[in-house]
């Protein structure tokens, strides 16, 4: 009995996974529980294990290839078993969009004659922009382009296609220069002057699954959620003192960020409107407080979640954040460690950024952008004295949170940070 190994849903937002590594090859015997492959999802690299024992009869996708959810990756079975039917079905399921045999006629074109409209077959013309993207990340290229690329040893995935639906055609391959964007028109290289002022080569960077996700989700957020921003300046003198004494007395390493997390978590319990999500037909005001912390990694950005942050002490918040950030950098975060946040904090203070505005991390209603603690002259009792100030900016989704509500929340955060003892209440 042949067993299909299909792309599992490894995170709640993944639509496809990229095979990062195969740990088995065709012909290998695997046991249930063996880790057979590593898959890069939109958030992390995950392990795929076999649930059944068997011989690897066929591996259908190579390392670096994308497979949609439920797409066939490999087939296990017994030596010599006939799996042609499975492979045929997989082939037809994953082949590109065929011409539909539907009888709906061409409504978009009232031309008297069209070369592509056959009353027999319906409209065979695949209109631009209506690509039924069932091509599973398969690269579209004309047979000729494929052949030229193969002969020249060029990786098709590094070429931009200029044909319909991004099909790579002959001229794209011919004009391709490694490390340079493929111009759609062959660029004339001037022969006269050979002076090259730049020693840095342009390069084409393949878009990773993570980049794709960041691009999609943040664009959606920024362009569809009505953001507004409020900045408040916080006196950090007391927080600095509190942190020093805590770290000295307890041999812990609490960061300012941990303190901000804690302050926000407490403020969120008092301002449930900020701890909420716009769900289209209703607004959900969450009972639990799960604070996500944005962690920068080389490939992009991750947002591990400190669950029930309002109920955790600074030491625990600190330890958890450190652990999660480490996992994030190693791309080892599990989906459940990244999901379910109700609020997000993004801190660029360590880079000396004074203030900035962050993009809301859906489905949160708000995100807090934390700036650096600055030495600034401040006026106290009519005197100019040295002060320690930190600016935080709250981005809010105006569908959920109004200006006054956001301001009230910020004032609570300010009050907690300026009187850290209040966090103990």
């Amino acid at each position: 009995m042949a067993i299909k190994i299909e792309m599992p849903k490894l995170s709640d937002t993944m639509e496809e996974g990229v095979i990062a590594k195969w740990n088995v090859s065709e012909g290998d015997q695997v046991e249930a529980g063996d880790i057979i492959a590593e898959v890069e999802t939109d958030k992390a690299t995950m392990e795929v294990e076999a649930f059944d024992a068997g011989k690897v009869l066929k591996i259908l996708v190579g390392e670096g290839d994308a497979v949609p959810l439920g797409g066939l990756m490999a087939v296990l079975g017994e030596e010599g078993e006939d799996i042609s039917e499975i492979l045929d079905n997989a082939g037809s399921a994953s082949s590109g969009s065929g011409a539909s045999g539907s009888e709906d006629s061409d409504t978009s074109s009232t031309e008297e004659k069209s070369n592509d409209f056959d009353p027999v077959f319906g409209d065979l013309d695949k209109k631009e922009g209506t690509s039924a993207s069932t091509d599973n990340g398969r690269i579209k290229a004309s047979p000729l382009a494929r052949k030229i690329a193969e002969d020249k040893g060029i990786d098709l995935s590094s070429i931009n296609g200029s044909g319909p639906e991004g099909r790579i055609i002959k001229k794209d391959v011919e004009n391709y220069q490694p490390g340079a964007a493929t111009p759609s028109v062959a660029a004339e290289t001037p022969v006269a002057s050979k002076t090259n002022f730049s020693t840095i080569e342009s390069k084409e960077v393949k878009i990773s699954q993570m980049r794709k996700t960041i691009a999609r989700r943040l664009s959606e957020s920024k362009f569809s959620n009505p953001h507004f921003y409020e900045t408040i300046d916080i006196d950090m003198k007391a927080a600095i003192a509190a942190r020093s004494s805590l770290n000295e007395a307890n041999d812990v390493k609490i960061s300012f960020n941990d303190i901000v997390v804690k302050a926000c978590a407490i403020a969120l319990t008092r301002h449930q409107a900020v701890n909420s999500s716009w769900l289209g037909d209703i607004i959900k005001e969450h009972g639990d407080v799960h604070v996500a912390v944005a962690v920068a990694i080389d490939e992009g950005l991750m947002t591990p979640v400190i669950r029930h942050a309002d109920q955790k002490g600074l030491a625990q918040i600190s330890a958890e954040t450190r652990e999660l950030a480490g996992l994030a950098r190693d791309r080892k975060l599990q989906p459940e460690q990244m999901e379910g946040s109700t609020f997000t904090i993004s801190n660029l203070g360590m880079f000396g950024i004074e203030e900035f505005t962050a993009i809301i991390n859906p489905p949160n209603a708000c995100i807090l952008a934390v700036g650096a603690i600055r030495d600034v002259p401040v006026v106290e009792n009519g005197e100019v004295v040295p002060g320690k100030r930190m600016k935080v900016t709250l981005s809010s989704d105006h569908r959920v949170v109004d200006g006054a509500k956001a301001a009230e929340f910020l004032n609570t955060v300010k009050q907690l940070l300026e009187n850290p003892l209040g966090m103990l209440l």
Partner: protein
Amino acid sequence: MAELQFREAIRDAIDEEMARDEKVFIMGEEVAEYNGAYKVTEGLLDKYGFKRVIDTPISELGFAGIGVGAAMNGLRPIVEFMTFNFAVLAADQIINHASKAGYMTGGQITCPMVFRGPNASAGQLGATHSVAFDSTYAHFPGLKVIYVSEPDDAKGLMKAAIRDDNPVLFMESEQMYGMKGEVSDEEDYIIPIGKGKIKREGSDVTIVAHGKMYHVAKQAAAQLEKDGVECEIIDPRTVKPLDLPLIIDSIKKTNRCVVVDEAHPFAGFAAEIGFLIQREAFDYLDAPVQRVTLPDVNAPFAKNLFDAWLPDAKNVIDAVNQVTYRN
């Protein structure tokens, strides 16, 4: 070289063959006393007499059958149909007898004859007089099908058809009979059946077009040249046997192909060519093969509808733009 009308080129070919071989004779409606419905046989009656230039009643099945019988008995008839639309009545003789005689008798009986006449549409003649039959007949084993576009091809291939020992359908066009062109005055000028011709050299796209559609393709190519697109036009001349290597070599050079065909789309000549190209030259294709055909609709009578129905240069240009990714 002499400049001849299409009808004159065909007539010369028939005349030369009748003079060369007394077994060759011609029969059909109005071929003798009226000098031919389209004046192809003009003067032949005076030259060869009633025995070899024979008027027939309006009975396609009957006289096609007489032709088949005569051919089986060693003569070399040329059967003229006033149009291939009428030859449908004689299809039993052509498809069931002429094409299969050699096969079913193990080669003991052959059927060396030519069925000829105008094919496809000729303006507002209505749905029953406007059908292109070349790919229909090409479907059947044992028949050779020629549908030419220029007088020179007509002369050389008509002579080859008369000399061929198999039944050959030779197709012409009412709208091309008066067309003039340079015709070789080489003695005994014969163009082998199954040899196409590159009628225009080009590097950007291969257009395969025969019969009346060759002229449509030629117009389109002239237009496209102004836009800097160099079309290579291949006229297969013979639908069956097909000069596939000529087409494939051209595709290997241009990587793109548009087939222009005067028939309906389903399972027609263009479909066949498209299939053969993808099988033989898959790795050379930079775009799917595109075809320009009639729609899957019978010929309309009204002028505006008819003009919209028949493939024209604009359709070909659109298809070329599509396969060269210029739109």
